[in-house]
């Protein structure tokens, strides 16, 4: 019985360890596929769509001071409902019909890693 419990615990831990990097890798892929078009592969707001005609500067996710003005809920809302939902540009389209809730939550965490900031609390 003890052996079975230990085996289950080890299996569970292994699964968890495998799952965490996989989820992070998936989020990185989601970011590079959807977001990098405008925000750039490293999050500096310099994706290939940002030509001289682009009417606004996409958010630079590496700017911790700017990113700290937003709570995680703010960031999630912008991803789901687009720029106008927070009085920003419609050049940021709503992704709520494209991404899953899990993908959006993953992106919020991913952006916090890029900015190395925790965001507005409360």
């Amino acid at each position, binding site marked *: 019985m003890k052996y079975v419990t230990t085996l289950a615990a080890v299996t569970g831990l292994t699964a968890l360890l495998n799952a965490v990097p996989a989820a992070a890798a998936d989020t990185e*892929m*989601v970011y*590079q*596929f*959807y977001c*990098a*078009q*405008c925000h750039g*592969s490293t999050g500096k707001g310099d*994706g*290939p*769509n*940002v*030509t001289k*005609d*682009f009417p606004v500067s996409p958010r630079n996710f590496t700017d911790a001071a700017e990113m700290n003005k937003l709570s995680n809920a703010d960031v999630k809302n912008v991803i789901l409902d687009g720029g106008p939902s927070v009085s920003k540009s*419609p*050049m940021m*389209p*709503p*992704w709520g*019909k*494209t991404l899953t809730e899990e993908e959006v939550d993953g992106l919020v965490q991913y952006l916090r890693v890029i900015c190395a900031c925790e965001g507005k609390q409360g």
Partner: protein
Amino acid sequence: MRQKLASVTGAVCLLAMATASYADGQAVFEAKECVACHYTEGPAQEKTIEDQQAKLGPELWYAGDKFQAEWLTAWLTDPQPIRPLKFNSLTEDNPADHPALSADEAASVGEFLMGLTSGEVEAGTVKVKKNAKGRQIFTKKMPCSGCHEYAGRKGNVSGGRSGPSLVDAGVRLNPDWILAYLQKPEFFKPVKMMPVFVGLLSDKDMANVAAHVANFKPKK
């Protein structure tokens, strides 16, 4: 009686020619190894981002819905980049290295590709004309222009580079397919970099956008 027989025989001959041309086109398509980059049998095979990124070129299983025949045949003889960037890349420019076909090959491959239809595009739904509402959505409300190049009123090209250029969309794309593509993204291309607009734009507004895009013609 004789006239009727001649007419039926003529129709059969025409059908045979068309069938032969489709088959010839398929043979050329395979011989030229187009299948290495393009798949031609639906339904959509991409279920994940990885699936999409593993592809070497656009899917063509609904090419007959998507393209205009005259444009397609001409393009096959002189293939110029449609997407400014390399397929599936956000950093490299399109190398403009798509193989060209001879005029005969292009004619038969064009027949083959135009025969690939999904049955999901209703003909005659989009009226191509100047459409102010569509223009407003395209450039401001849900700015397609953020990712797609288009020609402004003076012919100057602006817009983003991650999506296919729409500068010549009016001669390249079937207006009814543009609408169907907006309405049924899961059917045509379940995994793509473009947002899903179902539930965000009404069918009427999608038709307005389709009419606006289908009105893009190259400046002469």
